[in-house]
């Protein structure tokens, strides 16, 4: 049947783009999570998640709605601290350092682990100020020239510079959705993070913008550790090297993207990938 024929093509095409597993093996582990649990008030949203996330690769979290993907992502840069009633248990380490160490300054942590959200959320400021904001508060630029330099290079890395170079002082909210999302990525890059977390970064975008962002992610992977949450299995297949499948607050299965999609071990994973749940 053609529906499925089409599908095959898509998946194969995307899988072709990814590295081969052997390549991935070289990448050292950047982030490790052990037995991470999250409670929202009385409700437990995550039940003991343990995962290793490799450096300079894209790790995708997939799973049906409400399974805890975003929750886990938010644990990684402690954005859950900002949610009232959220309690995080277990241990997450970034380069061997416990990120829930009370002595650690969470602001510093977030400068190291950038985040891009589902809906593009540029600040209601100019494009320039959007990107410059992070370097400013973190004191990354010694002078205006420094700052200009950071802004331009970040916009360039996010593939946005050419499109906006003539209107850096116009409000960032005036850009199209896809441009806004790239602006947000540029903003995150400007702080010079080591890890970038993305929570369904394309779900509010049209297919063309989505394609551009996916391409961008693929480029960024060379310099950053990237974790992406997505509800589109095709997207996961297209951009990630590692995939983790969540269901009802549990991490059901994780592994190389190709393995997960072509040969899921777990019954639930199979069901999900085949569209039987979610």
């Amino acid at each position, binding site marked *: 049947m053609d529906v499925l024929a089409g599908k095959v093509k898509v998946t194969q095409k995307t899988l072709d783009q990814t590295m081969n597993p052997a390549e991935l093996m070289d990448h050292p582990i950047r982030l490790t999570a052990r037995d991470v649990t999250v409670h929202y008030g009385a409700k437990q949203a995550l039940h003991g998640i343990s995962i290793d996330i490799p450096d300079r690769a894209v790790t995708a979290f997939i799973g049906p709605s409400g399974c805890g993907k975003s929750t886990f992502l938010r644990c990684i840069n402690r954005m859950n601290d900002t949610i009232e009633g959220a309690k995080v248990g277990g241990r997450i380490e970034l380069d061997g350092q416990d990120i829930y160490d009370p002595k650690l*300054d969470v*602001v*510093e942590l977030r400068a190291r682990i950038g985040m891009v959200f589902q809906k593009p959320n540029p600040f209601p400021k100019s494009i320039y100020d959007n990107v410059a904001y992070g370097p400013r*508060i*973190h*004191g*990354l630029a*010694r002078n205006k020239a420094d700052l200009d330099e950071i802004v331009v290079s970040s916009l360039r890395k996010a593939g946005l510079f050419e499109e906006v170079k003539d209107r850096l002082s116009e409000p960032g909210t005036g850009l199209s959705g896809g441009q806004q999302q790239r602006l947000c990525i540029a903003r995150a890059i400007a702080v010079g993070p080591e890890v970038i977390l993305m929570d369904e970064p394309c779900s509010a975008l049209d297919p063309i913008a989505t394609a551009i962002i996916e391409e961008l992610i693929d480029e960024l992977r060379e310099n950053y550790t990237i974790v992406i949450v997505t509800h589109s299995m095709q997207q996961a297949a297209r951009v990630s090297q590692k995939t983790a499948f969540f269901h009802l607050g549990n991490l059901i299965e994780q592994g190389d993207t190709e393995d997960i999609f072509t040969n899921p071990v777990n019954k639930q994973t199979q069901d999900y990938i085949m569209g039987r749940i979610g």
Partner: protein
Amino acid sequence: MNTLILAAALLILLGVAYQSGWSKGRSLVAANGVTVHSRPQYHGAYVALWAMIPALVVLALWGLFGGGIRHDYIVSLIPVDILTALDQSGLNLTIGRIEALASGYGVVGEVQPWEQAAGDALRSFQFLTFAAVLILALVSGAGALFYARSRITARQRSRNAVERVVGVVLLICSAVAILTTVGIVASLVTEALRFFSFINPLDFFFGTVWAPNNAGTGGHYGQYGLLPLLAGTLMITAIAMLVAVPVGLMSAIYLNQYADRRVRGVAKPLIEILAGIPTIVFGFFALVTIGPFLRDAGAAIGLDIKATSALTAGVVMGIMIIPFVSSLSDDILNQVPKTLRDGAYGLGATQSETIRNVLLPAALPGIVGAFLLAVSRAIGETMIVVLAAGNSPVLRGNPFEPVSTITVSIVNQLTGDTDFTGPQSLVGFALGLTLFVITLCLNIFALFIVRRFREQYE
């Protein structure tokens, strides 16, 4: 003058401290690159805060104890033989004279040589203490400045420290609201207790006659029955609600459901103008226009309506409350989920059926809450009733007659020719307390209902 010097000195200290913290932070950046925890501005603010604290403590201590020290000093200036002859008020008077001399103002009558000497001594004492305090404050501030500055390192979390202080300042600001309530309760209760030391609370709360008496006439205090005032208050409130609720609710419904955007855009601000009109204006309007109009209209149909009466005040108060009711109802109607409305339309209900059978029942708790808030408002309204209710504290049920209310009596008793030491004016505070408690209960109940309603549809 002194205050100005103090303020200037503190400002300078503040500026210097900030600058020194900032420059140290800055030099750290230059030396260490990006690993400095906080930005120089935060280091500056950190040092500035440190410098201000001891300076302010010194000033606060002086503010607390300085008066006493000064007082003792002045007393010590008075020759012992004169001092022993003085009683308390004489002492106050003498101190006042010496202070007046010191401040350069003349005093009545002959100035004794010792008074003049004391005045001069006091003046130099004041100058010296002021200088001492100022220097002490500056020195301790500077000490703290150097200490704080020495603590600045690349890992020093100045930002966190400054932000904690900001947090505390914010907390203190929000405590003002609590303090206000405490202040209200404390002041009302203290004075009301004094009132109840004259008048039995039972006679106050359950008395049916309001006839305060000057202690001078006849020697007794008269009667302070709350009930006539309460009855008047409730009657006016009831009339006001009879006017405001139908008009306010129906206009809210019309604007919310029927009116197109243009009509709403014009009518809504116009109605809200009513809400912005000061109550004194309504009072005047009631007094010179509505009152005489109602009287004439009543006469035309054979009713004896007084120009200033419960009816006049009630009607005008009702007008005043219309926008309050309508905008609250409008909010509440907006909060009813649109899906409910769609559900009814989808079944083929007409618009009015949808509103009456679905929207209003769903919004009922919220609307009741809004009405209770309006009631609380009507009960506490003062100027309209002062001008238009007729000030007649008699227990009667005829709305065409003048009445008096709790608020009116507060104004009358506290601004009239009453004996301020007696229950006649103290009763104002007892009435205020009663009013506060009544509106408090209404407000809390209403807010509770409204909140429950909101949660239901969240």
